[in-house]
């Protein structure tokens, strides 16, 4: 029975390797396509991030101290405006009219941003980072009055030592992701091939030719399953090869 399955498997494989289009779409295309797709995604996301960093933001700032504005200028380029703007690179922040940084009272700062705008969202992130830095500054000043520093609030100092071999450090995420990615690639690669060799062959009228021969249905099924598995794996290996190539280029 297995001998018959191997005959069917070999015939299907031969057909793939003799057909330039099939060979290209199963073996070559994923190798080329993956670096192109992920390279393009990386390029677009990098250029968007760079664009967001270089943009001058229009900010409406109310009641903020100059000290905070100086800190904010270290995070983003901005120009102040008096009115709410419809522009994508707009955000607003409002300190209370009166507040005292020397007291333990909380200072409620309201930040307005537009979640539908990537630049406005980026501005929100930078404003929050600047507010954190300003918060640390206030804390530092208040602690100094009691001869303390920020470090004194952290009695434990943790130092992490990675004892894994240098070459395998940082591969934990990859080792976790590889089985999932492999499964996805095998399924994606094998789906079309599986459909073609079963229902596709039936539609083309080739399955009847096979079924009237002295070969069991089980042998036909095993041969075709084997063919789908092997081509699916070849496809995923090619996809991984393409990704490896992209990582090496980058």
């Amino acid at each position: 029975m297995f001998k018959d399955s191997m005959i069917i498997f070999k015939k299907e494989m031969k057909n793939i390797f003799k057909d330039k289009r099939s060979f290209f779409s199963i073996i070559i295309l994923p190798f080329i396509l993956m670096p192109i797709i992920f390279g393009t995604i990386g390029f677009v996301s990098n250029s968007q991030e760079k664009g967001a960093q270089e943009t001058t933001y229009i900010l409406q700032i109310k009641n903020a101290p100059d000290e905070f504005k100086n800190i904010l200028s270290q995070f983003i380029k901005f120009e102040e405006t008096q009115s709410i703007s419809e522009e994508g690179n707009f955000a607003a922040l409002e300190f209370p009219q009166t507040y005292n940084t020397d007291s333990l009272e909380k200072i409620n700062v309201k930040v307005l941003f537009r979640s539908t705008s990537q630049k406005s969202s980026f501005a929100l992130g930078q404003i929050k980072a600047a507010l954190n830095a300003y918060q640390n500054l206030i804390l530092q000043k208040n602690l100094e009055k009691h001869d303390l520093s920020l470090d004194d609030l952290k009695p434990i100092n943790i130092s992490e030592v990675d004892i894994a071999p240098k070459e395998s450090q940082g591969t934990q995420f990859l080792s976790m992701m590889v089985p999932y990615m492999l499964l996805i690639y095998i399924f994606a690669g094998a789906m079309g091939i599986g459909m073609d060799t079963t229902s596709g062959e039936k539609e083309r009228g080739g399955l009847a030719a096979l079924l009237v021969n002295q070969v069991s249905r089980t042998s036909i099924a095993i041969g075709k399953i084997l063919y789908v598995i092997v081509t699916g794996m070849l496809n995923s290996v090619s996809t991984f090869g393409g990704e490896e190539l992209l990582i090496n280029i980058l």
Partner: protein
Amino acid sequence: MIEVSGISKKFKTKKKVVSALEDVSFSCEDGKIFGLLGPNGAGKTTALRIMATLLKPDSGSVKVSGYDTVKQSTEVRKRIGFLTSDMKLSGNLSPDELMNFFGELNHISKEQLGSTKEQLVHYLGMGDFVSKPVEKLSTGMKQKTSIAVSLIHNPQVIIFDEPTNGLDIISSKVVTDFLKDFKKQGKTVIISTHIMPEAEKLCDTIGLIFEGHLIECGTKEELFKKYSQDSIEDIFFALAEERGLIKNV
């Protein structure tokens, strides 16, 4: 020898049950050609597919050289060569590679496969294209390849469903000449067709099938005498008109 005894077959669709064959019986001896004639949807292909073990009848039985197509399907498959007009060879394998593939599947020894291939290539005039990919062949060349593939294991019974469908006149002649030769070799040939003159020239016995019922079955002479007609085509149209299948003839 093939014996069809009272086979019936129904197909269920979502809306209704379609009766494709109703109590069909006939037989064909070795060295004879049996032609199953009927309009589209009459049940010809279903009958042939049951004979070729591709379908199981709901009732009745088919015996090929004494073997039951349901209970002894493997033995039946050793003895039949099946070809249908729906069966289209495709892909990049050459006729030679396809013959090797089907030969291996039928467990033919290399020596026997080599000599059978040589005979078929010579007989069907496949020498010029035997190494070319099937995809690049003409309809006639593909049909010749299909014939070669279905005969690679030297079957005793040939079941051909509309073997000349889509072929030009020269390619059709190659097929009909081949069927005649097969008959001379003492083998059993069952064909289905709706080309009446072809059936009249080729077949020893003719079965006329309409809407799943075998209306008539006999030699040409018997049918001519019974209907006082001198062509199968006229008998066919008379029967079709009787059943309301033809209007304003």
